[in-house]
């Protein structure tokens, strides 16, 4: 069998964060792949929601995005933003929000809006990206938030350029911030799985992927990363995980690379 790819480790790590019977709002790409894998393995009773109004879609062709008709296929319900983000997420019945991000910082604040390039000191040029869409809503309201993204120093700064979606802003508790959702729970990268310290609410290493050293993770992170004494290794995908990912879920390797 072909060697395990990093994206496959990430998808499997994401899937393992989801429990059977939970309701998940997913973004497109690896979050969607992870969710589909979970449903085909340990969590057949998982419900996946897409913000535009698609429940439990079951695509047979790989979609290029949330607006791609391929992702409407096999759904059990079509509705809209008001139902998914309002009557589910804002209502408080969404267990997990599963997002991508441009930047995420030590307190789990997410930026998907803009980056600032320091051209000359004190003078910054702003470059805009996608903005929030449902990201802020999901990060504010889901019981726990999982972010999946590349591990690069510039993508994991001490503080994001723009807090599009709040984590534990300023290290404060979610209640103190006036937010209902439980906040960031995991950051799944191509090097490690990060969590958050219960008291300081700072990002910490939960596991490192096979072949990666803790020092490497730290070197590629823009802030000092807490870690316990003995960091476990992220479990490898099982042969069945790989078969499902490669043959059923993303045979064209659109997301798995």
């Amino acid at each position, binding site marked *: 069998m072909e060697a395990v790819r990093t994206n496959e480790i990430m998808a499997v790590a994401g899937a393992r964060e989801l429990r059977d019977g939970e309701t998940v709002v997913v973004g*497109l790409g690896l979050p969607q792949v992870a969710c589909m894998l979970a449903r085909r393995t340990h969590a057949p009773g998982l419900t996946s929601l897409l913000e535009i109004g698609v429940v439990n879609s079951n695509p047979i062709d790989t979609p290029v995005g*949330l*607006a791609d008709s391929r992702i409407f296929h096999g759904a059990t319900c079509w509705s809209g933003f*008001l139902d998914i983000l309002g009557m589910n997420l804002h209502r408080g019945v969404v267990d997990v929000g599963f997002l991508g991000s441009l930047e995420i910082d030590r307190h789990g604040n997410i930026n998907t809006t803009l980056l600032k390039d320091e051209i000359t000191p004190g003078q910054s040029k702003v470059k805009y990206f996608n*903005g929030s*869409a449902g990201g802020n809503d999901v990060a*504010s*309201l889901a019981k726990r938030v999982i972010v999946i993204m590349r591990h690069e120093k510039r993508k994991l700064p001490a503080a994001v350029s723009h807090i*599009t979606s709040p984590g534990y802003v300023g290290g404060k508790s979610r209640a103190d911030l006036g*937010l209902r959702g439980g906040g960031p729970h995991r950051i799944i990268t191509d090097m490690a799985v990060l969590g958050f310290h219960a008291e300081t609410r700072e990002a910490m290493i939960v596991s490192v992927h096979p072949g990666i050293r803790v020092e490497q993770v730290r070197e590629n992170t823009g802030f000092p990363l807490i870690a316990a004494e003995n960091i476990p290794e992220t479990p490898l995908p099982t042969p069945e995980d790989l078969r499902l990912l490669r043959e059923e879920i993303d045979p064209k390797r659109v997301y798995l690379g």
Partner: protein
Amino acid sequence: MANKLKSAAAVVRTIPDGAHIALGGFAIARNVITVAHELIRQNRQELTLSQCVMGLDTDLLVGAGCVNRLMVGGGSLDRFGLVQCVNRARETGEVESLDYTSLSICFSYLAGALGISFIPIKSMIASEVLERLERGGGAEYIRRMDCPFTGEPYVLLRAIQPDVSLVHVQVADEQGNCQIHGPRWENEEQAKAAHRIILIAEEIVPTSVFQAHPARTIIPAHRVEAVIHQPYGAHPTSVYSCYDYDSEHLKLYVERARTREGANQYIDEFIRGTRDHAEYLEKVGGAAMLEKLKADPVLGY
């Protein structure tokens, strides 16, 4: 009831400069391309556009210089790229962008549709999305308040009632009853919030179709002002159950829109350089292209 069929050109003549237009598209799906093109051809100016998630329609209108204000939740062309004209205009400040979130725009439309002038929400709190709105032009649309029953802190959103809402639908009758196939994102709340609703329909069917399936009617005729019958009216974006997005053309657009000059060239060539949607469709590939994009009747794409 009256026959409300009109041409895109006739409809756009009734939309004045400075109007607030809500667009029913999402990223690369069901964009109101027909009317966006015609707004550009007729050189409409100083428009406010609102939408949960911007797509190609908004990017074209901003790129053509028709817009001076956005009220949006986000925007992208999915995997094809960013809304580059919009982002450039935000970076230069040419366009004032009130950047909300998907749900807060949707709640603002809902309030508008229900005729309540405000609605509370628990999104945006503790974020720079909220701070930037409060600091800028969003100040008149945002307040904070504690719930008088629970004491919980809320953001209050001012209702949005656009002057015109444009919705691209699969099926309508001449009176304006319509069906939307696939997910409906914010189409219903957005349209019902607006003072005027304009439909662009792929297909016109008899009213008896709606009487046979009344539960599927998303917007009933009495709310609708005009219906534009335009097959392939959302090209190059997709319309579920009718046709797929045109990858080649979207790639061409994204490539051109990297620079202001390229975007202008695109707009001159494909929009200002064509008289109407029929001529545009000929230019981008005509019947052969349309046939290729046509949806599989079972899969819907």
